[in-house]
């Protein structure tokens, strides 16, 4: 249901500075920010000094617009989206806007996750820029002795009717002294948006294609030497003894130190560091899971699933049990952190979704107060939830402290796959009860692996707080997307010590909603209904029906396909957004199923950057293909069997759809979340297509494992 764009205002302040500097508070979410100080009128309060909880916009004399963003860029395009919001309201050229990432702050909302970034910034960023524009126009009006309403803004300049113009940079000093604006400081109505909603290329695209974009490992921090860690073969394995004489004697080796995760080597290059690591003679004690393998974990999960209650009398049942393996995050950029820990202070450079927590954790690990720890947030080479945790930052800090020198710690890919975090394995038992052609009850019981907390487990080594790890609000399954009568669910868990888990793009929905959408197809089959028609008549929400219809029509649902090929469809709703995905699969070669075509339709409210949103949906389609068909991690006697992309089989070009398209529903609602939205719909659409192409009922994922 389209609700009108909110009229809610955000307090916006001018900061005392020699150049125009305005700030908008960022609370935990946008509504609490608006409620923070209801008595103050917007834009007439002078605040001295920068406030950590604010989004701050500064116009420099060199005509640059700088907004230091308290979020991390990991590929999701948040810096571009924010630059577009600023460009829209300021009438600045996108190329004149810089969005550096803010260092860790002491308070406020600096959390990147839960698909919340655009939602939390959309109001404050636009209010901020609108006030700045009003001040710049007022300053120009004074300079030229003209009424403000006669002036226009465009391309980071103010224009007078007679053709005179002034850059924002030339006006910033006088605009900084304006307390009362003579033109409106309200954001534009949606009807006047010309940047927001226009497909826009990433602001960092040129840096990326020329190799200039810098990630943590690319930094040249003075004296920070390449560092790697020898880790135990099993999860949570412990060091018994180490003979480091040979390693220390190798050329280019600066230090060998023990850390909780293993033995660290600091050397002149990563080549020297890896060589010396391999020369360490280490005896490891097996970790606490050493007796455990996949089969046992699977049976414990099955046993931990709560029993389903009694179905309504007289109903027929469609039931399914679904299993999902562990899945690594495996961002392309392995965990990397530069740390310089001194006796009285510390400085860390890394990519973090939770830099405030990281700062506290690093401070406590090295025995400093948080005020003495500086955390610089860098762009990340992918995340998918992995950078909610700050394991590498803590480890780098401990190594720097022990080695008494700055270090550049890098996890190897094998470290990442074998010791990195994982989406928990899970087991699902789902039952739809139907009578007279309708579903009258739907129940979903699940169990997933969770980490047993013993006070010194992984959470003590950089785990994200459980609080922030999960998207806010009830799980989508709690209310039910469908008119399925009585909907309920229950969950159990299998607690394992030392199991490195972490929230993975779309968190619980990635398994729960995927399994449900597969069962919905099976119910439709049991009722002799077409999967699209069945969903159309049973979905509760009009917006969800609309995206379903869009994906079905654009994707030519029901078109004739040769034997061995089929279409599958699925939907999902979360983060104030909804999506439908149609996938076509070719299973002519049963050993190499290929998803050939994916068509998605999404309603995320206002799509700030449709091109970026399409990219996010494209990424979730590949997540769905990978996790359903090939990508998972085995546990063999307490160790992860896989060690690189050679055996952790994430999709390559040959696995990706030959044709992808995304359709965005026009909307004037405020933006919903979008970064994780597509995962469950894509995964289930692939599974449903596979089921229809092969006449099987897929139950255990990934299918080829």
């Amino acid at each position, binding site marked *: 249901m389209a609700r009108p764009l909110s009229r809610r205002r955000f307090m916006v302040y001018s900061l005392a500075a020699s150049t125009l500097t305005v700030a908008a508070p960022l609370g935990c979410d946008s509504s609490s920010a608006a409620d923070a100080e209801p008595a103050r009128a917007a834009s007439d309060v002078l605040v001295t000094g920068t406030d950590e909880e604010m989004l701050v916009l500064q116009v420099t004399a060199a005509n640059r617009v700088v907004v230091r963003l308290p979020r991390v860029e*990991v*590929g*999701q*395009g948040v810096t571009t989206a924010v630059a577009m919001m600023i460009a829209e309201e300021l009438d600045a050229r996108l190329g004149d806007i810089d969005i550096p990432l803010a260092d860790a702050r002491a308070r406020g909302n600096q959390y990147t996750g839960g698909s919340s970034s655009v939602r939390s910034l959309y109001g404050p960023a636009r209010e901020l820029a609108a006030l700045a524009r009003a001040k710049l126009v007022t300053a120009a009006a004074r300079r030229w002795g003209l009424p403000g309403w006669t002036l226009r803004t465009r391309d980071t300049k103010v224009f007078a009717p007679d053709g005179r113009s002034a850059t924002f940079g030339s006006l910033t000093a006088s605009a900084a002294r304006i307390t009362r604006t003579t033109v409106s400081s309200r954001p534009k109505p949606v009807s006047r948006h010309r940047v927001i909603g226009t497909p826009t*290329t*990433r602001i*960092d*695209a*040129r*840096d*990326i*294609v*020329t*190799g*200039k*974009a*810098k*990630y943590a*490992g*690319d930094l040249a921090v003075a004296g920070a030497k*390449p560092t790697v860690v020898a880790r135990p073969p099993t999860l949570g394995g412990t060091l018994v003894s180490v003979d480091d004489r040979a390693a220390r004697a190798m050329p280019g080796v600066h230090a060998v130190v023990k850390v909780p995760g293993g033995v660290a080597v600091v050397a*002149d*290059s*990563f*080549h020297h560091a*890896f060589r010396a690591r391999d020369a360490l003679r280490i005896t490891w004690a097996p970790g606490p899971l050493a007796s455990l393998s996949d089969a046992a974990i699977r049976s414990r999960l099955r046993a931990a699933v709560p029993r389903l209650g009694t179905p309504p009398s007289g109903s027929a049942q469609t039931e399914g049990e679904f299993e999902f393996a562990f899945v690594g995050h*495996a*961002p*392309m*950029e*392995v965990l990397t952190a530069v740390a310089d820990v001194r006796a009285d202070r510390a400085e860390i450079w890394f990519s973090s979704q939770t830099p405030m927590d990281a700062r506290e954790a690093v401070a406590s690990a090295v025995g400093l107060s948080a005020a003495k720890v500086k955390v610089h947030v860098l*762009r*990340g*080479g*992918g*995340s*998918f939830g992995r950078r909610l945790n700050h394991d590498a930052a803590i480890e780098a800090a401990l190594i720097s402290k022990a080695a008494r020198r700055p270090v550049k710690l*890098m996890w*190897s*890919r094998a470290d990442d796959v074998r010791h990195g975090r994982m989406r928990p394995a899970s087991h699902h038992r789902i039952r739809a009860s139907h009578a007279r052609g309708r579903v009258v009850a739907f129940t979903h019981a699940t169990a997933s692996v969770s980490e047993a907390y013993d006070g010194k487990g992984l959470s003590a080594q950089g785990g994200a707080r459980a609080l922030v790890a999960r998207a806010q609000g009830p799980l989508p399954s709690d209310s039910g997307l469908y008119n399925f009568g009585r909907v309920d669910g229950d969950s159990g868990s299998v607690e394992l010590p030392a199991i490195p888990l972490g929230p993975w793009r779309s968190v619980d929905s990635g398994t729960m909603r995927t399994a449900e959408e597969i069962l919905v197809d099976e119910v439709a089959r049991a009722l002799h209904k077409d999967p699209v028609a069945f969903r159309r008549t049973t979905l509760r929400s009009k917006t969800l029906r609309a995206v379903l219809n869009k994906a079905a029509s654009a994707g030519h649902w029901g078109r004739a396909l040769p034997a061995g090929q089929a279409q599958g469809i699925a939907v999902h709703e979360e983060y104030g957004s909804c999506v439908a995905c149609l996938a076509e699969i070719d299973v002519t070669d049963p050993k190499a199923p290929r998803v050939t075509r994916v068509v998605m339709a999404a309603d995320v409210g206002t799509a700030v950057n449709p*091109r970026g949103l399409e*990219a996010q949906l*494209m*990424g*979730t*389609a*590949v997540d769905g293909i990978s996790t359903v068909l090939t990508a998972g991690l085995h546990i063999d006697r307490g160790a992860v069997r896989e060690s*690189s*992309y*050679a055996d952790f089989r*994430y*999709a*390559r*070009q*040959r696995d*990706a*759809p*030959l*044709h*992808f398209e995304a359709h965005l529903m026009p909307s004037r609602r405020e933006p919903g979340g979008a970064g994780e939205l597509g995962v469950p719909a894509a995964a289930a659409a692939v599974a449903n297509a596979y089921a229809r192409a092969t006449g099987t009922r897929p139950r255990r994922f990934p299918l080829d494992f």
Partner: protein
Amino acid sequence: MPSHSFVLNGEQVTVDAPDDMPLLWVLRDLLNVTGPKYGCGVGVCRACTSHLDGAEIQPCVVPVADCAGRAVTTIEGLADGDTLHPVQQAWLDRDVAQCGFCQPGQIMAAAALLTRTPQPTDADIDRIENVCRCGTYSRIREAIKKAAEQTAQRD
């Protein structure tokens, strides 16, 4: 320590390094050329993909000694000054990148493919092994086709 001379992005360089030191770490740790990325160290993810005498290599598995007297090109050396290589331009036009970490390698792999096969088919493009964990593959495919078209028009 042995000394190795080769041409890097058009300039003669000499480095002191063990013969078996992978070119990737020579580039990144000794020469501060950071466009080629470490993603696995075993030639699988191909985030480090660069060119040796114009052909695709994975510097993480090529010893520096093998490069002596030859021409190494990394992403930093692909453009002609401020004029982007047609593959880089196509990457910009299609806005391929997400996190960007694998893209230097993807671009170098695509450029090498177009040198070998100026009009690649979908099957040719499918043979590119470079991993993109963000899943930008559809745009990579479009960008390669666009670069192929533009190169054909110019010739």
